């Protein structure tokens, strides 16, 4: 087990490093930023001075070495526009974004888990069909459109909930509802087919044969086995969920990372975007590390392989 964990941590570090390196060179593709960032009438001296202050006058390899050295002091460079470390601009916003992402994920996955178990234990086919149709409809509406519609109904028409900004806990309801319903539809389908695949397995028949009740076979025998593929996919999807968060933040003007990143696109402020890439990569890698550890603890074949 310790070797398994060490190997996974090693892989995680390599991934983050690779993302940052690719990001660094991507940022250098557009050349020196001075002419883009400074106002129209800037003289060549001003542009050169701006570039020199950011280290763009040095050869590329030296810029990369400086960048790597910066990583060890916890910086990915200063914002071109605001002259402060780019990571600092994002760090303030991380809690808001993660609040949104983690609440939606937990509610979506948790509810899907419970409902799937309910369907399989009780064999309520009508519930299965009803939720399938609803889920299909939800998945046919892109997140941003669903969010705008939620804002229209619950904020403009009914006036129950705020639709813009962060005005306390009630502001979280609509954005979370928007993301969690999509997560619920996705995971209900995944868990449903994972449980369905377990049904014909020999170990399930053996459990019935030795007289175990249907409920206990589903809950105690089938569920852990069905969870392994679901968790793996959940880990991969969480990265995508952060992408969805960017969209939903834009819909509800939620003050998270996504807003900062979109502003940075308009201002061509690449270091801020690079900091965003770093945060997403670290988050993604951490989540998958945790998923791997959970999977290994459920399924001995994984850690012994």
């Amino acid at each position, binding site marked *: 087990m310790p070797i398994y964990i060490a190997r996974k941590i090693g892989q995680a570090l390599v991934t983050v490093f690779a993302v940052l390196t690719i990001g660094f060179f991507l940022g250098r593709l557009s050349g020196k930023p001075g002419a883009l960032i400074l106002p129209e009438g800037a003289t060549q001296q001003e542009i050169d001075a701006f570039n020199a202050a950011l280290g763009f006058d040095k050869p590329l390899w030296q810029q990369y070495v400086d960048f790597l050295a910066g990583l060890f002091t916890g910086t990915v460079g200063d914002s071109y526009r605001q002259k402060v470390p780019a990571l600092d601009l994002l760090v303030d916003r991380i809690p808001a974004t993660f609040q949104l992402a983690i609440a939606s994920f937990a509610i979506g996955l948790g509810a899907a888990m419970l409902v799937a178990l309910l369907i399989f234990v009780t064999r309520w086919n009508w519930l299965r069909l009803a939720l399938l149709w609803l889920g299909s409809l939800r998945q046919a*509406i892109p997140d*941003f459109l669903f969010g*705008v519609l939620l804002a229209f109904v619950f904020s403009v028409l009914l006036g129950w909930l705020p639709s813009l900004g962060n005005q306390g806990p009630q502001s979280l309801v609509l954005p979370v509802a928007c993301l969690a319903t999509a997560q619920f539809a996705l995971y209900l389908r995944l868990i449903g087919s994972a449980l369905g695949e377990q049904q014909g397995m020999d170990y399930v028949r053996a459990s019935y044969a030795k007289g175990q009740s249907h409920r206990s076979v589903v809950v105690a025998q089938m569920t852990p086995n069905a969870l392994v593929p679901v968790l793996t996919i959940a880990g991969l999807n969480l990265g995508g969920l952060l*992408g969805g968060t960017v969209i939903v933040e834009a819909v509800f003007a939620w003050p998270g990372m996504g807003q900062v*990143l979109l502003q940075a*696109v308009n201002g061509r402020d690449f270091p801020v975007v690079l900091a965003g890439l770093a945060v997403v990569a670290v988050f993604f890698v951490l989540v998958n590390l945790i998923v791997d550890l959970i999977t290994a603890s459920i399924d001995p074949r994984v850690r012994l392989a």
Partner: protein
Amino acid sequence: MTVAVSRFALPALGRRRRPRTLRPSGTVPMYIGIGLLSSIVLLIVVVPFLPLYDPFGQDLVDAMMPPFVAAEHPLGTDSLGRDVLSRLSLAGLVSVGIAATVVAINFVIGVTLGLIAGYRGGLLDSGIGALSDVQLAMPVVILLIALSAVFGPSTQLMVITLGLTYWVGYARVARALAMGLRDRDFVVSPLTQGGSHGRTVFTHVLPQVLPQMAVIASFDIAVIVGIESSLDYLGLGVQPPVPSWGAMITEGQKYLQINPWLVILPGIALFLLVAGMQFLSQRFTTESVAPARKGARR
């Protein structure tokens, strides 16, 4: 891995058949899908021939007209007085065109890499597998944000980014199919007569793979339209004044209190296309393609 469920596999004879998968099935979704899609086809194909206003023509006097009021603007006008119906139609054409381009790029990359991985196996296979894992790891919104910060947002950038990221599904299916065909006699025999690997794959393996892949590709167009409209909504895709459903919704959201139709109408158009394709595809994926796709998962 597919599990054949025999009737002996179920406990206690006489119990009701339990759900095997959680998916609507039957022919009803297919007819719903055809119905929804025909309205979009009408919107894109027929509307341009109607005597309507130019989608770019502004008329501030008639701005913010609600739908179903004036015959000259059947679906009303936006904040600049542009005709909503003709803009919806043009936006649909733009979206479907973009999605078809993206899917074509995905298709070529995915099928090529998938066939190579499945046919050759070994190191190339693991390499392509690793590449597709990387693709899955990076959310396309974040990736496009990064690229747009460097190059500036544009339609071309979005098409290239989507084209280079969404090929993994095709690669997986093509790989699985190619692996199954690799040792069949009609593939091996040209090799024994001195045929090259490349030619064998192209003339004997590819034709076997294409039909299934084409089905998947045609349904992916709606998936890409959904993603593309989200990117347009964020301002990372189609740039004004060219209309897109996503950007029309961004614009309309500002006037949600005054004229919600500016959000609802493009929303309906988007829903009709995405939902229509989804319902139609369920018919095909559950009946004919699903077994092969299932086998594609490692």
